[in-house]
């Protein structure tokens, strides 16, 4: 198991690029073109993702990382303000923590 984990361990830039790819797949390329996606981009405000899009985004994370990351469980523990302010950087560091 250790070897697999080590082999798939990604750095924050790789995670960011993967997240960006997932977001593009979820909301559509032409809508992403109008956005400047950065680690500071908030999910609800900047990316304007609705609950359906967040669900399909989290399904992509699950498909990629498997049980290693419980994204939905992590989200469900948040309060309203945390959800409102949720940004890409927070997800990147959460994934990094899960990998270590």
């Amino acid at each position, binding site marked *: 198991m250790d070897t697999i984990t080590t082999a798939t361990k990604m750095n924050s830039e790789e995670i960011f690029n993967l997240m960006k790819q997932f977001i593009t797949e979820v909301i559509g390329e032409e809508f992403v073109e109008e956005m400047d996606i950065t680690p500071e981009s908030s999910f609800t405000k900047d990316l304007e993702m609705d609950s*359906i899009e967040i669900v399909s985004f989290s399904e992509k994370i699950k498909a990629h990382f498997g049980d290693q990351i419980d994204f939905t469980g992590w989200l469900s523990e*948040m309060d*309203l303000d945390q959800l409102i302010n949720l940004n890409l950087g927070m997800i990147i560091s959460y994934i990094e923590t899960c990998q270590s």
Partner: protein
Amino acid sequence: MSKFLFVVPPFFGHISPTLSIGASLLARGHEVKWLGITPLAQAHLPEGGEFIYPEADLAEYQDEIQRILKRQDDGPACSGPEVMKLALEETYVPFAKMMMKGLNNFVDQWKPDVIVNDCITFAGSLCAILKGIPNVTTTPVPPDVMGDTASSAPKIFEWQQNLIKGLQKEVGIYDDDIHIHSHELNMVFTSQAFAGFEEKPPHMQFVGPVKGRPNLAPFDWERLAQAKTPKVFVSLGTLLVDIRKEFFQKLITAFEHEPVTIIAATNPDIFEQWPDNFIVNGFVPQSELMPHMDAVICHGGFNTVNDTFSNGLSMLITPIAYDHFHTAKLIEKAGCGVSIRYKRLRISDLRNTVFELLDNPKYRLAAEKIKQTFIDAGGNDKAVQLLEDFAMEAVKDGLIE
């Protein structure tokens, strides 16, 4: 005969079904009044009904009421969690607090037998608890919009509970129950099948759409009769003022050269000129128009949703905010329409979807099925029967003299 007091919010979509039931109750000889936080034009009221606007008791809150009403325009730009805050914390709870004084005073004076509160107008239920008056709740949208937060998002559930219990304490209700809705009878204006409830709590009654409120809006029926292409009704409801122009610009671009007639309910002033195949009126007799239509485009306001499926029509729903997303999911599940989120609405998809709805019979067939569940739910007759039985039971229980 009984005295029914409807307690309503300043949002017409929520008031509308109560006007229809109120008309039926008045026709049966009951006394019916409405009470709200902003005035309502007499023309909307069924004959014999009265709207109470406790102006003096609301005087100190005028600036705050106007600020909160204006704040609703931000709704379409808000994300899901922000809308939850805007609705519950910034609108429903403060409105309930402001309404208590005028409502309590009027109830002491008129002594209604039953207080019927709209589901977001908590003051009605709170007043009923404080005064020991039987209480019914009306719910114009499919319930469960927020989902089961108790298990899926415990911190959000806790936030809701704290806000409501805080409100209850402030008005003088100190037990641990939630009292913003009736625990005896909650009438929902859709069908159980459409709302997606396999089981329901016993106090929840799905009565389907209700109709019959006065609507005197004039309409150019002759021009409609001359239209030879498929007719598509478009409504954005009474809220959402800020995005109106953008929404209708998309419609014009999509359909100005297409073989369809667009019947739009919006203030024509937003553009100097409309294409020839657009019939535009600020107010329309929507229920009378609907049987002449072939399809509907709307954001998911619930009265338009009910009018659409009551006529077995298919719908393109473009959810923007609030409960629209929940309604959109129900429509896709029932197969009677297509949902494209407003924020991701491409002109080509708008055009292609409308023609798909007009050309592919499967949507109309699914809509006909929903129509039948609406009819079976009983509508006005069922609602009146439930209210009369409820008032009668209350007499038996000694709650009404």
